[in-house]
C-alpha cells in the first residue's frame, strides 16, 4: 500500500482535530482534539520514516508521545482546577486575560 495514503489520513485527522479545537467549547473535548492533532502528526512522522527508509521519524514520534503525556498531566490538572473554581469546563468562560 502506498504510504502517501497514510499522509492523507494524517492530514484528515489533523484537520478534524484543528476544527474541533476551534469550534468546541468544552475544554475536555478541545483537549482531546489536541491529542488527535498530535497523533495525526505521529502518524505522518511514522509514514515519513517508512518512506525515507530510516528511523528518524519514528524516534521523533516517541518524543512526541512523551511530550504529549507530560502535556496531558499538566493540561488535565488545569482543566480540573478551572472546573473547580468556575463550575464550568467551557473555554470561553475563562476569558479574563484581555484588555
Amino acid at each position: 500500500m502506498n504510504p502517501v495514503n497514510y499522509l492523507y489520513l494524517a492530514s484528515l485527522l489533523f484537520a478534524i482535530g484543528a476544527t474541533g479545537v476551534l469550534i468546541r467549547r468544552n475544554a475536555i473535548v478541545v483537549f482531546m482534539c489536541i491529542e488527535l492533532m498530535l497523533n495525526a502528526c505521529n502518524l505522518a512522522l511514522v509514514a515519513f520514516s517508512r518512506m525515507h527508509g530510516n528511523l528518524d521519524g519514528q524516534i521523533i514520534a516517541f518524543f512526541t508521545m512523551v511530550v504529549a503525556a507530560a502535556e496531558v498531566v499538566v493540561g488535565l490538572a488545569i482543566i480540573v482546577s478551572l472546573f473547580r473554581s468556575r463550575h464550568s469546563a467551557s473555554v470561553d468562560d475563562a476569558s479574563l486575560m484581555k484588555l
Partner: protein
Amino acid sequence: MENLIALLVAAPLLGAVILLCGGRRLDRTGHWLGTLLALGSFVVAALLFTDMLGRDGEDRAMHQHLFSWIPVGGFQADIAFQLDQLSMTFVLLITGVGSLIHIYSIGYMEHDERRRRFFGYLNLFLAAMLILVIADNYLLLYVGWEGVGLASYLLIGFWQHKPSAATAAKKAFLVNRVGDMGLSIAIMLMFTTFGTFAFGDVLAATGETSEGKLTAIGLMLLLAACGKSAQVPLQSWLGDAMEGPTPVSALIHAATMVTAGVYLITRSGAIFNAAPDAQLAVVIVGAVTLLFGAIVGCAKDDIKKALAGSTMSQIGYMVLAAGLGPIGYAFAIMHLVTHGFFKAGLFLGAGSVMHGMNDEVDMRKYGGLRKYMPVTFVTFGLGYLAIIGFPGLSGFWSKDKIIEAAFAYGDGVRPWIFGGVALLGAGITAFYMTRVMLMTFFGEKRWQPTPDPHKEPSAEPAADDAHAGEMPHPHESPKSMTIPMIVLAFGSVFAGGLFSLNESFVHWLEPVTAFEHPHPVISVPAITASTMVVLAIGVAIAWFMYGKRPVPVTAPRGSVLTRAARRDLLQDDFNHVVLVRGGEHLTRSLVYVDHTLVDGVVNGTAASFGGLSGRMRKLQNGFARSYAVSMLGGTAVLVAATLLMRAV
C-alpha cells in the same frame, strides 16, 4: 626666585577670598587688607623684576609648574606659569597701577557701605588678570580671561541699584562672550592642529603648519581680542561700562583688562607672523577702531565716556601696531604701558573732579575748576599732554613710534593708508582731549545745582533755580586720592622717555617678540614734524571752539556726524537692527519650523502608533479559541510561504 611666581597670584586671590567670604566684621579693615595684598603682589613683582634684570636677555624667562590640571591620555593641561619679559611688563603694570588704584579707592569709596565687597572684587580682578598674563598655556590664559570678564561684570554693575549699571554690566558680559567664543574656538583649533596649547610648543610649531589653519586661528584670536579690548565690531560695551565706579574705569577699562587683547595678539605673534591675512585683519580692525573711538570721544559730554572713546582709540593704536608684526609689537606694548599710566591718571582725575562736583559727569556743567582743584588740574594736565603726544612726554615717544611703524607697513598703498589713519588719529586725539581739558578746567563756571534726591520736589516752582538743590562746592580730594594721581602723573611724564633711552624697552622685549627696525616710506623727522603739525591743528581747533567761545550748558544740536557720534556712531542701533532683529527673525522662523516640521513628525509618529495600537488591541479579546485561529492561520501562512518559495 621662580617659586615666587605663584605668590603674585596667590596674594590677591587670598584677599578676594577673605574679603568676599569674611562678612561684615571686615567692613572696617577690609580695604586695608585688600590694598596691602595688592601692594604685596607688587613687591613680589619688583623682586622678580630685579632678579630678572640680573640675568642675560635670552634666559630671563622663568617657569613654575604647580600641578598637572587635566592629564588625560595625550591631553595635558597644566597649571604652570611663565614669566618672561612680556609677562613681567604686564605684571609690573597690573600690580603697580592696581595698587595705586586700591589706594585711591580707599578715599573714593569712603562713603560706600559696600566698600569691603568692592575691594574683594578688585583683588579678584588682580588675581585673574595676573593669571592671564603669566599663564604658560592658552587654556590657563583662558581661565584668567574669563576671570577678568567676571570681575569686570561685577564691578561695572557694582552700583546694582542703578538699572543703567546693571544693564551695562550685562551688556559688557554678553558682548565679551562673543569674543570669548572666539578664544575658545582658537584653543580648540590649536589642539586639533598642534595637539597642545602650551605657548612654547604652539609657537614653535607654526613653521610646519599650513597658512590656512594659522589664518583661521589668528582670526579667532582677533575676535577674542576685539571682545576684550573693545575693538570694532565688538566695541559697544566700553562706553556703557563707565557706569561702574571711576577707579574701576581707570584700572579695568583703561589701563589693564582692555589691553588683554593686545597681549593676546603679541603673545601669539608667531602665529600672526606666519599668517599675513590675519595680520592685515588685525591692522584694519586697529585702524578702524582708532578713528571710531576718536570720533566718539569728540562728541561726548560725559567726561568718562569721552575718556572711554579715547581709550578705545588708543587701544586701536596698540592693535594696529601689534598687527604690523615684528616692527610693531614692542611699540604696541610700549604704548600700552605709557597709556596705562596716563589714561589711569586721567580717569582718576575725572573721578576726583566728580568727587568734588557731587558726582556730576556732564562736562558742560564743569568749567573753571583749575583754581579749586590745583592738584587734580596739574596731574590731569600732565596726563593730557602725555596722551596728545606733547614732545618729551610719554605719549610722544610711544605714539610717534607707532605712526612711524604704520608708515613702514607692507608696500604699495598700504603704508600711506594706515600711516595716514594713525596720523589723523593723533590730530583727533589732540582735539578731543583739549576739548575735555578746556570744558573741565578752563572757561566760565557753569555749575548747576544738583537735584537732591532726599528732598521732596516742592509743589510751587522755586523762585531761583539755585535754591532748588545744592550747589557743588568743588574741593581738592583727600591725600589717598591725590597721591596715586601724582605717581601716575610722574609715569605719564617720564615713562616714555625712559623706555626710549637707548631703545631700552625694545631691547628688553626683543627676546620674546623679536624686533625689526621699521623703514617708513617717508623719513622719520618728516613724520615727527607732520605729527606735530596735526597735533597743533587739533589743539587749535579745539581752542577755537571751546576755549575762545563760551561753552553752552545745554548741548547744541550739532551736525549729523556729531549727533551720530553722541550715539556712539549708531553702534547700538546697528547691533539692534542687525543682530537683535535678525536674531528675533531667526528664532521666530526656527520656532515655526520646530512647531510644524519637527513637532509634526514627532506627533504624527505618535498618533499613528496610537491609532494602530488602538486597532490592534481589539485582537486581544481573551478567547483562547480566537488565539488558536490566529496561530493556525499564521502557521498556515508560514507553510504556504515556505512551499511557495520552494516552488519558485
